């Protein structure tokens, strides 16, 4: 056995849960946190140990206090929640009050701390001047005491009745990039988060009768302490910590591979809980096969109760919130889709920890691609989301993304910051749908196997780091070559509309009994991707012609012993980012008979409506 193979075998044999490639420990948090469900507060104290990950000494810290986005109607979050982002403000505001922040020597850092003066009325950022600089690689430990007051459930966080989704509840150190610049930002209504990896050791105290689900495995408890219950969660290699608590939670558990999966749900929601476990049983191995190991031993899925829907559909390390109506038929895969998406974030956000504020497409868009990819792995061709036999047409995951991208009326680049998109709707259609369909197009062009290997190489390289688009472009260049790098750069960095259409399909009889004609293929947009043009004659015979598709218009001649029936361009759908597929095929002569079924169907429904007010 060669040395390399022995090392390889040792890596494979690493104990369960150990990180094959250790995550950096930049920000470690040790808290004891007490939930008061009557006041909707979490009072906590403990330490933050921060290690300078950059190449320069720093004498300041930026902390994010995201919960202060809900501190009142004038915060930056509320000002930027432009109507369509989140429903009206919560009836009960929330806030994060840091009551004490000291160095190990006892120096008070709070006295001189400030908020970002560039953002008035907003306290979602805290600037702290350090008494002395922290050199590269050196650490500083801060003692902290704070009270988080949760808002009524809004934008992923808050309480409803006695249910509490405790997220963004502690002061979190912003990311110091390698060059010594702080990536800090005010909490914007369209933005998610950004933080550094570390170890979390959190003791959660709560009243008897409550059930808690939290980031990381539970290593102690629950056991009674001071009239409350306490449990301790410890995890490494993550960059956030959240927990849910409710005195009415029911739970369902299943071990999938090495991972203990827990579902916490409301009474009566057993069906959604079972469906969540069922889909994870397939999804966990599928994600690991495509995107690498899920290194944590635990996953908690929280289905928030009715009334707390604002906290549903969100990702935290090893804890996700999902939700769907319990009565939806099996073939409406709402809970499955949401579960896959939020679990996908364990990769694209969790381990591949890109800046969600600056490059939301790197987490949401890549995660959306991964969701559709695994939907197809689990549910067959296209990854059907809605597949109801009674309604006829089904809705596939890829079609869903393609339609979302095609619906973009005014295209913007995909690599904008979350706060640069002018509305929630325009953020979503670009960041989620268009990104996913660009990646799908790349997959269709280079083949699923090659693209999966490329994406896997990106995940492996970016694991436990903060990748930027350049990280991905470099992997594409190395794996697929410069032309594909140019393709993804154009697709992500520029505004584009792209469409192929058959604008003309004609043939006429020529002397000698043969038929001659042509097809005209119009191209709108930047990508010169070769495609097939398929001629079908009136006897049903097909002939394909490959065109370079490198000009705005391509004329393809037709010759045959029968008249031309129809022409289609790219019938294999190798460029799903196209705006329209309807105009990719065209009859030489219009035909009316095939339309009758549609008219008949509509007539039937109208007749039923008329009959119900009939004699």
């Amino acid at each position: 056995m060669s040395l390399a193979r022995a090392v390889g075998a040792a890596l494979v044999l690493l104990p369960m849960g150990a990180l094959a490639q250790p995550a950096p420990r930049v920000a470690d948090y040790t808290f004891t946190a007490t939930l008061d469900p009557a006041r909707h507060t979490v009072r906590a104290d403990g330490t933050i140990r921060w290690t300078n990950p950059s190449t320069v000494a720093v004498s300041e810290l930026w902390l994010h206090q995201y919960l202060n986005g809900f501190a009142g109607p004038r915060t930056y979050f509320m000002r930027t929640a432009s109507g369509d982002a989140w429903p009206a403000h919560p009836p009960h505001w929330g806030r994060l009050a840091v009551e004490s922040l000291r160095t190990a020597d006892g120096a008070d850092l709070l006295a001189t701390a400030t908020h970002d003066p560039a953002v008035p009325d907003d306290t979602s950022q805290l600037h702290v001047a350090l008494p002395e600089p922290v050199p590269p690689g050196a650490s500083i430990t801060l003692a902290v005491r704070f009270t988080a007051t949760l808002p009524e459930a809004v934008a992923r966080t808050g309480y409803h009745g006695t249910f509490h989704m405790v997220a963004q509840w502690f002061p979190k150190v912003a990311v110091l990039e390698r060059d010594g610049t702080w990536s800090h930002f005010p909490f914007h209504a369209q933005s998610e988060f950004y933080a550094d990896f570390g170890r979390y050791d959190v003791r959660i105290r709560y009243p008897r009768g409550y059930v808690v689900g939290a980031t990381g495995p539970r290593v102690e408890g629950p056991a009674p302490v001071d009239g409350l219950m306490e449990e301790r969660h410890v995890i490494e290699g993550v960059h956030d910590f959240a927990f849910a608590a409710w005195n009415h939670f029911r739970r369902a558990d299943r071990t999938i591979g090495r991972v203990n999966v827990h579902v916490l749900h409301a009474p009566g929601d057993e069906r959604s809980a079972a469906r969540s476990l069922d889909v994870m049983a397939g999804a966990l191995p599928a994600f690991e096969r495509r995107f690498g190991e899920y290194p944590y031993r635990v996953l908690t899925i929280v289905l928030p109760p009715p009334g707390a829907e604002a906290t549903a559909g969100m990702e935290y390390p090893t804890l996700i919130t999902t939700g769907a109506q319990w009565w939806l038929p099996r073939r409406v895969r709402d809970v499955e889709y949401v579960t896959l998406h939020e679990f996908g974030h364990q990769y694209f956000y969790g381990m591949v920890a890109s800046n969600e504020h600056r490059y939301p497409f790197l987490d949401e868009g890549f995660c959306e691609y991964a969701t559709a990819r695994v939907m197809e792995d689990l549910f067959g061709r296209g990854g059907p989301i809605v597949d109801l036999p009674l309604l006829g047409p089904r809705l596939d995951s890829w079609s869903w993304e393609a339609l979302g991208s095609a619906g973009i009326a005014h295209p913007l680049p995909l690599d904008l910051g979350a706060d640069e998109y002018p509305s929630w709707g325009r953020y979503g259609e670009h960041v989620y749908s268009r990104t996913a369909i660009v990646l799908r197009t790349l997959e269709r062009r280079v083949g699923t196997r090659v693209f999966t290997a490329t994406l896997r190489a990106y995940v492996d390289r970016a694991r436990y780091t903060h990748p930027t688009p350049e990280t991905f472009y470099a992997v594409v260049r190395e794996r697929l070559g410069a032309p594909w790098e140019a393709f993804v750069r154009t697709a992500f960095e520029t505004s584009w509309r792209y469409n192929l259409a058959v604008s003309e399909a004609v043939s006429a009889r020529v002397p000698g009994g043969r038929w001659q004609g042509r097809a005209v293929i119009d191209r709108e947009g930047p990508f010169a991707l070769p495609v097939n043009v398929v001629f079908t004659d009136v006897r049903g015979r097909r002939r394909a012609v490959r065109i370079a598709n490198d000009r705005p218009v391509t004329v393809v001649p037709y010759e045959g012993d029968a008249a031309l029936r129809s022409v289609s361009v790219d019938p294999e759908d190798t460029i799903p980012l196209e705006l329209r597929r309807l105009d990719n095929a065209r009859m030489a002569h219009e035909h009316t008979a095939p339309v009758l079924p549609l008219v008949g169907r509509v007539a039937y429904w109208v007749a039923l409506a008329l009959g119900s007010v009939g004699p």
Partner: protein
Amino acid sequence: MIRRWLSTGGRGGVVWGVAVIELGLAWLLALAATASLTGTLARHPLGAIGLHAQGGRLLGELVALHAHAWEPMAGLLGVVIVAHAGAWMLLGGMFPVLGATTGVRWHRAAAESLRRAPTLLGLAAIAGLGYALAGFAGYAAAGWAGREAAHRLDVRAITALGGTGWLLGGALAWAIGLWHDVARAHAMSRGRSAMQASGSAALQMAREPLATVAAGAGFGLVTWAYVGAAAALAGLLDARSSRPGVVAALLVAQHLVVLGRVHTRMKWFVWLGGRVTAARARAE
């Protein structure tokens, strides 16, 4: 058995007539509603079958492309339904007349129905008032259920509560529809005024509650069974196969559903006619 069910005692012509009128109107409206789509589909080699292709992508594009056409179409559909309802309000006595008598030609029945228009309008007005009350009751029940649901934890119980408003309103509306049918039967077969017929209908429903309600529910179920059967057939065939023969078979089945519904309505009024005649015999 089937032959006995199919027989309407010589009233088959009117069943066909009404079904043809309803389907004709529906086809006219459908042609108008799909006019914007048919051009696009006629240029596409897949035709309407394309709606099932590519995992919903083509259908989605079609909907997006013609989104501007939906609103006027919905408006047109509303106008046609209201006009249709108005026409049937006036002709609404035709089925009761035919149901209560044998050997009356359908144009005679229609003429009689038009002659008794004031009575029929009166009954329709009373029924309309009833429907409004049913709506209000449903609304009030939904409000109560919503407040009640806020204190519940079990998601199934919350869903069930959410349905109570609809259920109560729907049940009331159905009972009023039943009463309206019975009242029309009394008005048209016994020459009663709107007020008299209302009373007679209420009296009959009170005297034979089980028979009337059961028959009304039975005939109602049959009308919906046709729709269910067509939907099940669509489930079996649709999207699984788009061969022209399959598509045509489904279309034929769906049109038979409309005919079957009209036929069942006729049967119901024949049954009611028998009851009303019996009541008259008792009264005389």
